[in-house]
């Protein structure tokens, strides 16, 4: 149950693009055609599914406070979490390179379709964001980390697929000249994000009374509140951002 919940939550509720705007640069740059968007989206799923569990292991056994205990009791006090940025990005850059080499060697056809996107991915915020969110939300097991990586990858994939399809169609519409291209894409993404916000009620059923004392993994419950009481909006947004 926990797995299913996390999976759907990372696809819809905490969608990388519509809730956190991660990976917007490549989202805007590569969404002109559906075919290329699918290629990049697949590559993102692939890389997230590898790097999130890997960084989970790093975090659990090297970076967290007291994580070095397995090396002996005298290491139990070390807290290396300030190194996590550099460790995560190094893992990601290395893995992307490695994946590129392996794919090129064993599956040239896959390499031809993913190949040009792989280097782009090392600097895609969605990848690093996945690892950092995994760390700040304290995801408990390796299985859940893998699940989270795949889920957020699929969420990103769906988003870029949708915007690419819309952009292909909108080329035939009469958009005001200054809005053409970038401007209208921003506004459409905004509207899509509003749509995706309605998934916020998906996991709680939407109607249950909300217990203020419950500590959620992140802003799930808070999001519910925002939709109901506009006066609380400012405070709840602060809450969601801090968690």
């Amino acid at each position, binding site marked *: 149950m926990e797995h299913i919940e996390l999976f759907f939550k990372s696809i819809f509720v905490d969608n990388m693009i519509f809730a956190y705007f991660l990976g917007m640069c490549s989202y805007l740059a590569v969404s002109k055609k559906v075919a290329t968007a699918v290629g990049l989206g697949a590559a993102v799923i692939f890389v997230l599914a590898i790097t999130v569990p890997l960084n989970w292991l790093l975090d659990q056994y090297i970076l967290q406070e007291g994580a070095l205990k397995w090396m002996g009791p005298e290491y139990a006090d070390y807290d290396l979490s300030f190194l996590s940025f550099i460790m995560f990005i190094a893992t990601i850059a290395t893995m992307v390179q490695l994946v590129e080499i392996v794919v090129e060697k064993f599956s040239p056809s896959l390499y031809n379709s993913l190949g040009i996107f792989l280097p782009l991915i*090392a600097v895609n915020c969605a990848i690093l964001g996945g690892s950092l969110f995994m760390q700040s939300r304290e995801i408990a097991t390796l299985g859940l980390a893998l699940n989270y990586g795949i889920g957020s990858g699929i969420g990103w994939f769906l988003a870029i697929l949708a915007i690419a399809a819309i952009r292909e169609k909108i080329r035939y519409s009469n958009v005001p000249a*200054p809005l053409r291209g970038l401007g209208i894409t921003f506004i459409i993404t905004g509207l899509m994000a509003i749509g995706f916000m309605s998934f916020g009620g998906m996991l709680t059923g939407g109607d249950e009374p909300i217990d203020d004392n419950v500590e959620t993994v992140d802003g799930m419950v808070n999001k519910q509140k925002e939709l109901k009481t506009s006066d609380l909006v400012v405070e709840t947004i602060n809450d969601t951002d801090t*968690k």
Partner: protein
Amino acid sequence: MGLLSKKDSKLILDPLADDNPITIQVLGICSALAITAQLKPSIVMAVSVIFVLGAGNVVISLMRNIIPSKIRIIVQLVVVATLVIIVDQVLKAYAYSLSKELSVFIGLIITNCIIMGRFEAFALANGPWRSFLDGVGNALGYGVILIIVGFFRELLGSGTLLGFKVLGDSVEKTGLYAFGYENNGFMVLPPMALIVIGVIIWVQRSRNKDLIED
């Protein structure tokens, strides 16, 4: 601008408007949107990026002749990551609540495309002083957009600026609220950041027709 030659001042001023990293070059949008619900985090983010990009451009430019081109991406990532760790630690030490509020988005400066973009496009080919100016200029252009978005979202969304109730008190109905004005709670939700930037692009492009796409 006695201090800077004409060419140098162009490096700083161009990215502020006609070559803006966000609205024209489409770089660094990821982190720009998520933290602009209020003005204060937007300003902190802008200052952090100015520091990271200014310093990073100088470092890369000093090393440009000794970096093997094959591994330059990793070298660049290490330089940015180091600078971002410095920013993160400073924020944690002196502004803990703010660093909690910005959460993962300080870390995401590492993958901010503006930074890699400027390293690749400018610092690898130019001297340290010019790279520094270019870095600061581009980061300023980014900061300006962040601050504009943060300003409007906080003003319209919660009726405050930097936490001060500039429009009066919404609970006690003073100031503007006495006339029945209501905050637009929608402005603080994530989707509005996209729409506000869309509108900024619209305004900018209708003022300068050269920027219109196809």
